[in-house]
Structures are given as structure tokens and as C-alpha cells.
């Protein structure tokens, strides 16, 4: 577990034993109940020196209080070089924490030692696709539908080049010629595999339930490519039974017909169209470096502003600068943020998580969610947490980076997918091997400048 000291404030040492449900209360927290009302971030009248050496089993409500006390009772100076939302130039730093920054790593429950995709998890050869019992064709309204395009599920760069250079007829001829050669896995592949793992666990616990992930292949490829795609699905033992090959017309209508909860595509225009229709969507890119991810636990990480929340705060920052942003956040601390495009998907994940908790599997839950935000816990982060709480949404881990680069943190978390509205962060994550998806939403899109030249497919 990461040990850290908080500068310039000294926090009292905590002797906390983690409780099974992660909601441990520290001794000093109990003391404070007299001073402050339950569940209210009050202002402490006297400042107590308090030091924390291990925040691993700190509950979010404790973090709230901690952060609130810090912001109100202590003087915190944020170094000038670190601003939320700023495109920092020195993002190569591998230091997770610097003493000049204040970050609080809030954990809702202690992370269980995870398998990092060991040999026992790997599937060698084809496993039998027939499984005893369970629902395999859930109704779209009951399932969490994730639509993926063929270009993000598989690697099709070579075929893309044929299409671009030689036209559609040659492209299809090429595809048919290579029909029995399966495509290699693409950036969405590990994510989809993880969804299937969750499904397997859900079916064990609730064999008759249709509340599962339903993965649909939605591509505007021509059906001539269909046989190759189906062969590839079979080759990789994927459980994709539904698809739409629209032969060139827009797939957006089909997304709505399937009641899609999340759409992943390589085409930013299609993603924008989907977002405009109220469907959570993100653009994915192929990365050369891919960190190994868990095969037993689905991990989804979200940026806060313009992803889970609206871009209202970002607008203030962009228009009026950092100070105004902080002021605005403080003034509006008790006003909920408006929702962002991925809020619904987090909600859907939460619903499935609760199904595991109901069967006593909180510690071993195969779904874990993360908030990775440039907000800082002491100030602007409070509003984010309050908003999530008011929405009834739970997030397992909230990481407030106060403007630090996200790459190194994501590399530690190893999510199967990370959603961010800024290309800068998406690229930064990708450089360190995290599969990041761009949500082209909000004011940041006017400022998005891809750092690397070359086509993204």
C-alpha cells in the first residue's frame, strides 16, 4: 500500500483495522462526531494535528471530512505548476506523488489482491461454448448492451489500408480471400473479454436473470466481411451472438434499437453522433504498448468533468482561469454537478455490482470502478464526490490528481478501459499502456490537439 505524508499538514496517525465491508472508522473520526454533525462537512473550530500513514482502509466519508477540514482549516497552497485540466508539459514524471501536492486516495473498500492474469486464468485452446444453464440471449431492455465496432474489437489496420488505397471492391475481395484468417485482438478486446468474465459470474449466481452484459458487434462493414468476422469471433471464443453489419449506412439507429448502454468505435464522427443521441460513446485507438490487465475483474476508469459530469466547470476554468474555477467550485460545493455522457454507464455497472453484493461478494466483486480526475480532493473534488453520492452512484476508488499526469496512476490501476474527454490524457494513458477511450464531449473539444501526427483508426 502506498504510504504518503501530506504536506504541509500533519495528520494524526491512524490505527485502523479494515473491516470486511471497508467502512472502517478511525478512532479520531469517532472523536469528531461530537464536534460535527453526522454526515455533514462542518467546520472544525480547532485544528488538531493529524497524520496518516496508511489510507488503505479509509472510507469515503472519512475522506470527505478529511478533505473538508483541510480546505477549511488549513492553509493549502497549490504550487503554480500544477493546475487541474492544464496540459502539463512535464508529463513524463514517474513520481506518483510529490510532496508539494496534496492528494487523497480515497478507497471505498480495501482492494483485494488481484490476479494479474496468471496462467490459471488463460484459456488454452477452445473451451466448450456450451454452458449449462443460464440466459444467453437477454432482452435488450434488461441487459447492459455494449456495442463495439469491428475496428476496435479487432485489429484491421492492414485491411483499412487496402480500403483507403484500393477502394471498396478490392477491400472486400481481400477480406473474402483471407476469410479463414482471424483478425488479431484490438483495443476493445480485453474489455469485452472482461465483460464475459463478469457474465459468467453473474450466471453462476443468477442463472435466470437477463441482467447481463450483452455485447453486440455494430459495424458499417459490408456483409461480405461477415464470415471473416464470425470466424474471428469463434476463433477467439468470444460470446458475441448479435450483430449489425449495415453495409455502409449509419449504425446509430441500430444502437438505439438495441438500447445500447455504451458504444465503442474507431470513428469519432459516429461516436459524436451517438453522443448527440444520448448514447454513451467513446472513440478507441490502437496502442502499441498494452499493459496486461486482469482476466478475472473488470476495471473501468472514468475522468470526472465532461465524462461523468457535465463540462460546466471546465468551461469556467477555460474561460476565466484557475482561481475563478476554484472559487466557483467552492461557492457551488453544495450544488450538484450536471450529469455527463458516461454517467448512465457507471450507473449500469453499479446495478450489476449490487447483484454481487447481494450475494455476499463485495470483496470478490468482478467489477471495479475508478474515478481518475484532475480535481483536487481538498477543494474541487468535494463537489464531485457529493454529486456522485447524491446520484446514488458508488465508485470504488476515487483518485484526485490535482493536475498531475494520469498515465502513471492508470498504469497502476490497469483498467480495461479509461474514459477521458481530453485527447491529451488519452494519449498520455496510451503511452503507458492503458487502453484509453476519448469521449468527444464538451468544451475541451475545441482545444483538443492530438500530439502525434498520423491517422487514428
Amino acid at each position, binding site marked *: 500500500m502506498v504510504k504518503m505524508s501530506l504536506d504541509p499538514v500533519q495528520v494524526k496517525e491512524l490505527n485502523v483495522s479494515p473491516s470486511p465491508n471497508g467502512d472502517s472508522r478511525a478512532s479520531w473520526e469517532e472523536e469528531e462526531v461530537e464536534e460535527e454533525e453526522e454526515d455533514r462537512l462542518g467546520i472544525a473550530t480547532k485544528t488538531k494535528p493529524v497524520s496518516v500513514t496508511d489510507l488503505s482502509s479509509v472510507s469515503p466519508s472519512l475522506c470527505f471530512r478529511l478533505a473538508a477540514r483541510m480546505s477549511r482549516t488549513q492553509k493549502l497552497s497549490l504550487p503554480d505548476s500544477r493546475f487541474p485540466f492544464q496540459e502539463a508539459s512535464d508529463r513524463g514524471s514517474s513520481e506518483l506523488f510529490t510532496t508539494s501536492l496534496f492528494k487523497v486516495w480515497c478507497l471505498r473498500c480495501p482492494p483485494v489482491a488481484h490476479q494479474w492474469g496468471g496462467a490459471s486464468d488463460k484459456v488454452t485452446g477452445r473451451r466448450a461454448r456450451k454452458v449449462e444453464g443460464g440466459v444467453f440471449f437477454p432482452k435488450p431492455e434488461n441487459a447492459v448492451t455494449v456495442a463495439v465496432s469491428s475496428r476496435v474489437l479487432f485489429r484491421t489496420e492492414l485491411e483499412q489500408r487496402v480500403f483507403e488505397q484500393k477502394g471498396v471492391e478490392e477491400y472486400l475481395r481481400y477480406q473474402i480471400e483471407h476469410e479463414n484468417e482471424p483478425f488479431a485482438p484490438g483495443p476493445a478486446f480485453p474489455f469485452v473479454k472482461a465483460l464475459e468474465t463478469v457474465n459468467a459470474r453473474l450466471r453462476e449466481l443468477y442463472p435466470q436473470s437477463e441482467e447481463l452484459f450483452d455485447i453486440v458487434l455494430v459495424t458499417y462493414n459490408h456483409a461480405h466481411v*461477415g464470415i471473416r468476422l464470425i470466424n474471428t469471433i469463434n476463433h477467439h471464443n468470444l460470446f458475441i451472438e448479435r450483430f449489425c453489419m449495415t453495409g455502409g449506412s449509419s449504425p446509430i439507429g441500430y444502437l438505439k434499437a438495441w438500447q445500447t448502454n455504451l458504444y465503442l468505435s474507431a470513428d469519432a464522427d459516429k461516436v459524436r453522433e451517438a453522443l448527440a443521441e444520448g448514447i454513451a460513446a467513446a472513440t478507441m485507438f490502437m496502442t502499441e504498448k498494452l499493459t496486461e490487465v486482469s482476466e478475472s475483474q473488470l476495471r473501468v476508469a472514468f475522468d470526472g468533468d465532461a465524462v461523468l459530469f457535465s463540462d460546466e466547470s471546465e468551461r469556467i476554468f477555460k474561460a476565466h482561469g484557475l482561481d475563478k474555477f476554484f472559487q466557483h467550485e467552492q461557492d457551488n460545493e453544495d450544488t450538484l454537478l450536471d450529469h455527463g455522457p458516461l454517467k448512465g454507464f457507471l450507473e449500469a455497472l453499479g446495478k450489476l455490482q449490487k447483484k454481487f453484493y447481494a450475494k455476499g461478494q463485495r470483496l470478490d466483486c468482478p467489477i471495479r470502478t475508478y474515478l481518475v480526475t484532475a480535481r483536487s480532493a481538498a477543494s474541487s473534488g468535494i463537489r464531485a464526490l457529493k454529486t456522485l453520492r447524491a446520484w446514488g452512484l458508488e465508485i470504488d476508488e476515487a483518485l484526485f490528481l490535482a493536475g498531475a499526469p494520469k498515465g502513471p496512476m492508470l498504469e497502476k490501476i490497469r483498467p480495461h478501459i479509461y474514459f477521458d474527454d481530453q485527447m491529451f490524457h488519452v494519449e498520455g494513458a496510451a503511452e503507458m499502456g492503458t487502453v484509453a477511450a476519448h469521449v468527444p464531449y464538451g468544451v475541451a473539444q475545441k482545444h483538443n490537439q492530438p500530439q502525434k501526427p498520423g491517422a487514428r483508426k
Partner: protein
Amino acid sequence: MEMVSTVQNTDVKQKDADRALVVAVTTRAVFDAAAGDVYGMGVAFPLLQKVNERLLEKNPAESLLFDVVLIATDSQQQSSRIISSTSHYGLEVGRFCFSSREDLVETLVVNNVQLFLSTDRDEALQVSQKGVLSALLGRQEAPSESLRVMLCGDAIVRPDCDPVPASRGAAQSFSARLGEMRGRFGVSGSPLSIVLVTSSGGSKSCGVALQTLRSRGLSVDEAYCLAGAPRGPILSLLRPHFLLGDGVIDLED
């Protein structure tokens, strides 16, 4: 006693009877009795004609064209009215058949009809049970760039479960001819689109359907594998003009 008379439409150049893809439709599917407007088939007709035009553009001697037979089964309808309406709306009907309900199937067989189009599900089912391939006409007024022919793959994949085994042979030969016609055009910009939908069964069975059709010479443009999901929402997006399939298609959106 049978009273079937066939009249050739002199306004329209006759097709080669052996090579044409003969499609029959009843007057009910074409003319709404009350309004006297072209309906149902009304949307499909111009698109079907466009296919013929484009085929002839490529090859003026083309013989694989759509040949439309208009069948009147209602003795109340005046033959002269039907012919003049057809002319008025510029419908490319090759032949008129004045028949009766009871003689419908015989009329179809005698005229070598390869596909019977109807807006009436029961009528379509009855006809296909007698061995003539039937399809439902899509009820939509939205404009389209191409004539969209939809095939239901479930019967293709599991012929033993085909609810209408009698028309299976007709279905196979029709897909071969349709495939040949489709093959005259390129992948994009074709006036004819072939859409495959499988309702039950997973992606693997849809793959089998694609391969089976391909082996008959029919390359599909769009493919949708529903795997048990409700058909209505998808069908309303697909907007097929002709729905061939499993005999129990519910066209309700």
C-alpha cells in the same frame, strides 16, 4: 369453370419469359380501393423499375430483368380501370391477369411467377404453401436509394424447421437469380440491396446462412443477427420493400 385471362400491356416492352425474374402482385397491393392511389407496392414499383433501367444501361440486351404481372382477383374491379390506372401512374406492368381468388395460385403457376408479393400475410402464406415463393410488401413511405429485399435466414439455416417446405425449391432458385441480378452491380451504388436477418440462433448460424446464400450465388449487402431480440425496432430501421422469409413474419413495428 376457370376464367383467367391474361392481357399483355402494350405500353411496356415485353420481357424474355424464360430469363426474366417474374414478380406478381395483386391489384389490392397496388391500388387502395378507396383512394384509388398507388399503395404498398407504390413505393417499391419505381425502385423496381430503376433496377431494370440500370440493368439495361449496363447491357441493352439484358434479359435478366424484373417482369411484373398484375393480378386482379376481384371481379368487381373493371379491367379497363385497372389498365388505365396502371398507365396513369406509369407502372411498368408486363401483363395483366384477370382471375379470381380461388384461381390465384394457378394463375401464378401458369405465368411462371417466381415471386408473389402481397400485403396480406395470410394470402402470402397460403400461396407459399402451394409452392410459389411469397414475400410481404414493406409498409413504409420513406424514400430509398435502392430496392431493399430482405431474407430471413432462419429457414435457410434450418431447412427442416422451414414452416413452408413446399416453396423451399422456389426460394433457392429465386435467390440464385436474384444473386445473379445483384452481381451485375458493384458493391456501392447498387439499385438493389440484399438484407439478411436471422431472428433466432446466434452469430454462427447467421454465418451459415451467409455461406449458404453465397453458395447459391447470392451475396448479401447487410446482415443482422438478432439472436432473439425483438424484431420490430430493427425492422422499422431496415425498411425492406420485399420481405422473404419464414412464412410467419410479423410486419408490425
